[in-house]
């Protein structure tokens, strides 16, 4: 008897947090204190990883089968529907698998890119600034809630503040670590200099105009800007697919609704997080290849080993290449069955290293990336016109469809008083004919804003106009 312990990277976001997964009957998380991204520290999602890695079974039309049979059946159905199949990966798997995936997907690849952004912004959007540079910044401007969305950035921000940095937050709620809290509608009050560093979020649901707006702010002030991203290998997904034409999630939804797309093949990506269920129900077949718990019902599930057992390379927000400590390649083998060809891990691995200009994957060595300039941007972010809105703050639990202890909304005391809400009671939230009742938590949130890190089923994007009552 010897423990199976895997050195791995948390798939909760693209921060690149190192950890160990210990197989001890049940799965256990152990702290990998030498990991350069997180010094072994994990957020609430990281601590809950054993739930995410609950075993999944290969299925065809509701019947359990082997991974090979599931992949063969998927290949058969894909071949019969050529031209109406779309391949989706948000970057929750290894760079090697993503390279193989592209060979299958050809021109019908969707990786969650935001539509209508100029190509010269892609490098800035996708390759971030090293965390050590954030810690050394003099003025940091947050367009995120670091505690909720990317918790491991908090200690870097506190470290910067201890060294004298000023922190400004452009957010819906006051953040304890910020010296200055500015509401999103008052962003014109923000004073930027060349010493400032903006931290924003870039994800498949990002509002294009908001992204343009923050890019324009940085461009006009000559300020550095870095985007944090939600999937384990978001940066690798961009680097591996560089130069390949992709479409956005909104276009994908449109194509499915029009009926031009019949089959959706998802690689380590849960489509229900991004695509409305009424749209997914219009597909003839939904095929999901995955190694983790699914919250979506698919026609075919190709279940391979979980990420922690895989062999391969992830690239984090900073552009740091990190090796997974497993030996599994069954995901790659399944993709080979779909493609009708065998994928060789070693040659794909060489291509990955070549794509990022390194000869060896060493997590302590930062590859060199060009910081490309982007042109002037015309942003036309519309001011929020709703009197009251529910704002969804996407965090790792939401992106992965994993349950969290968050069945409540945050609102401020003015809202509580105006609605005469009762302590320990609930608030009624109405949107598009649906009404829900939720517990509330009083927090220093903007007037008439409700914040949530949960999906209640009434949302229409990130900001949902709502009516509220006691």
């Amino acid at each position, binding site marked *: 008897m010897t423990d199976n312990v895997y050195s791995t990277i948390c798939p909760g976001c693209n921060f690149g947090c190192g950890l160990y997964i210990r197989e001890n009957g049940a799965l256990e998380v152990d702290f990998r*204190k030498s990991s350069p991204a997180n010094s072994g520290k994990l957020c609430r999602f990281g*601590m809950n990883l054993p739930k995410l890695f609950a075993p999944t079974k290969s299925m065809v039309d509701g019947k359990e089968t082997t991974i090979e049979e599931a992949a063969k059946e998927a290949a058969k159905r894909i071949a019969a529907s050529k031209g109406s199949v779309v391949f989706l990966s948000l970057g929750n798997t290894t760079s090697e698998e993503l390279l193989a995936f592209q060979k299958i997907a050809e021109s019908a690849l969707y990786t969650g890119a935001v539509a209508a952004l100029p190509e010269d912004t892609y490098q800035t959007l996708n390759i971030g600034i090293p965390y050590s540079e954030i810690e050394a910044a003099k003025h940091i401007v947050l367009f995120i809630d670091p505690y909720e969305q990317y918790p491991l950035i*908090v*200690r870097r921000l506190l470290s910067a503040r201890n060294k004298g940095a000023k922190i400004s937050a452009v957010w819906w709620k006051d953040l304890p670590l910020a010296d200055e809290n500015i509401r999103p509608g008052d962003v014109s009050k923000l004073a930027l200099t060349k010493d400032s560093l903006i931290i924003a979020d870039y994800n498949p649901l990002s509002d294009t105009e908001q992204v343009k707006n923050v890019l324009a702010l940085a461009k006009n002030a000559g300020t550095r800007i870095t985007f944090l991203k939600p999937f384990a290998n978001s940066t690798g997904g961009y680097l591996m697919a560089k130069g390949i034409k992709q479409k956005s999630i909104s276009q994908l939804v449109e194509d499915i609704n029009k009926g031009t797309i019949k089959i959706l093949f998802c690689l380590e990506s849960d489509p229900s997080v991004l695509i409305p269920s009424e749209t997914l129900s219009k597909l003839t077949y939904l095929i999901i290849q995955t190694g983790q718990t699914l919250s979506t019902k698919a026609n075919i599930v190709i279940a391979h080993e979980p990420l922690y057992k895989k062999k391969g390379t992830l690239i984090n927000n900073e552009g740091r290449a990190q090796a997974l400590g497993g030996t599994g390649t069954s995901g790659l083998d399944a993709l080979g069955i779909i493609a009708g060809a065998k994928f060789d891990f070693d040659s794909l691995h060489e291509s990955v290293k070549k794509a990022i200009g390194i000869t060896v994957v060493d997590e302590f060595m930062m590859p060199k990336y060009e910081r490309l300039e982007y042109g002037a941007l015309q942003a036309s972010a519309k001011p929020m016109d709703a009197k009251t809105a529910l704002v969804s703050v996407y965090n790792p639990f939401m992106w992965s469809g994993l349950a969290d*202890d968050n069945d409540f909304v945050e609102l401020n005391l003015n809202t509580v008083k105006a609605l005469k809400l009762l302590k320990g009671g609930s608030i009624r939230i109405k949107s598009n004919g649906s009404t829900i009742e939720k517990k509330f938590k009083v927090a220093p949130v903007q007037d008439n804003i409700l914040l949530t890190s949960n999906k209640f089923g009434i949302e229409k994007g990130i900001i949902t106009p709502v009516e509220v009552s006691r």
Partner: protein
Amino acid sequence: MQKGEMYVGWSTKEDVRKRGGSGGLVTSMLAAALEKKLVDAVVVLKKINEFEAVPIITSDVNEVLNSAGSLHSVPSHFAKLIANRDLKIALPAKGCDVRGIIEQGKRNAINLDNTFIVGLNCGGSMHPAVTREMLEVMYKIKPEDVHGEEIEKGKLIFETKDGKEHAITIDELEEKGYGRRESCRYCTIKVPNNSDIACGNWGVTGDLVGKATFVEINSEKGVKLLQNAIDAGYVQVQKPDEKAVAIRVRIKGVMEDLGKKWKNKIFVPIDNRLEYFRKELEHCIDCGACKTVCPTCSCGDVSKCTEYHSRSDAYRMSMYHLVRFLHLADACIGCGQCSDVCPVDIPLTRLYRRFANPVQEQLKYEPGMDMRKPPYFEVKLNE
């Protein structure tokens, strides 16, 4: 051989002597325990590099013989690792490991009769991320070039691959914020006599320096461990002379006094205590890592601190932390694991010790040092 005796010993296996520290006695004693079926499994550190090793439970003698020995930059803790496993097990243990194991024993999560604890002298451990930065900033050497490390006469010495040694005093390193973890600085359990057998290099003298381990037998299980290793031909021992014993006592005393000085330096009285605790905890993200890693917590999923807590609460200080402060007042062993794993760098151990120091001093109770029940378990009602 009996409880209370002291020896100096070494491994009879040349390769273990070469690879292991201080003559490889601990490694060989653990391997012998496994081979002669004194235990079912052994805990060892599997070395990844100079700054990383992962603890594993193994029944493979070769895994034990090839294990890392002790590394100052691997501040792991073994109590939770072996809890609820129902194994007859032997393991190396720093003072804080031993204390955690004993506390888990009191809470019925570890069967102490089946647990053979090999205590290791410990002057403190270092966080690997801090060590890497320290090498670059203070020593001006690349972490990748480090080949080995040791502590000698108050200096932390790194050997690089080119054979050179680089030494800086621990005092100087700690003045600059490097060196040992904060909890190690004020720890006063330097020789774990609460273990079954306490081992280390303090007290090894003359030609044996670096080639042998000093051993103190603290229990009948300690006798069994050492006698088993000798009978199996894995270990040789001899009696230490009086001078060696005196040196060991002196070093232990100096280290314990240093720990007490640090304790006074760190725990200066604070004003406005509520605001102090509230400010320190304001960045908490409710990850629960401090509870998961705590070696004196054995509650599992259903626990007081989580049952009374909800993320929807808007209290200025969460019920989770308030309940943990109370729980740990008589249970905290000051191991530093909670501070190590806190994702927002809250100095949790320092906060828990703010409650634990006065309570444990007044109750004259040191958790993890013996089988005495936590005083708050033994409430006496007025008759």
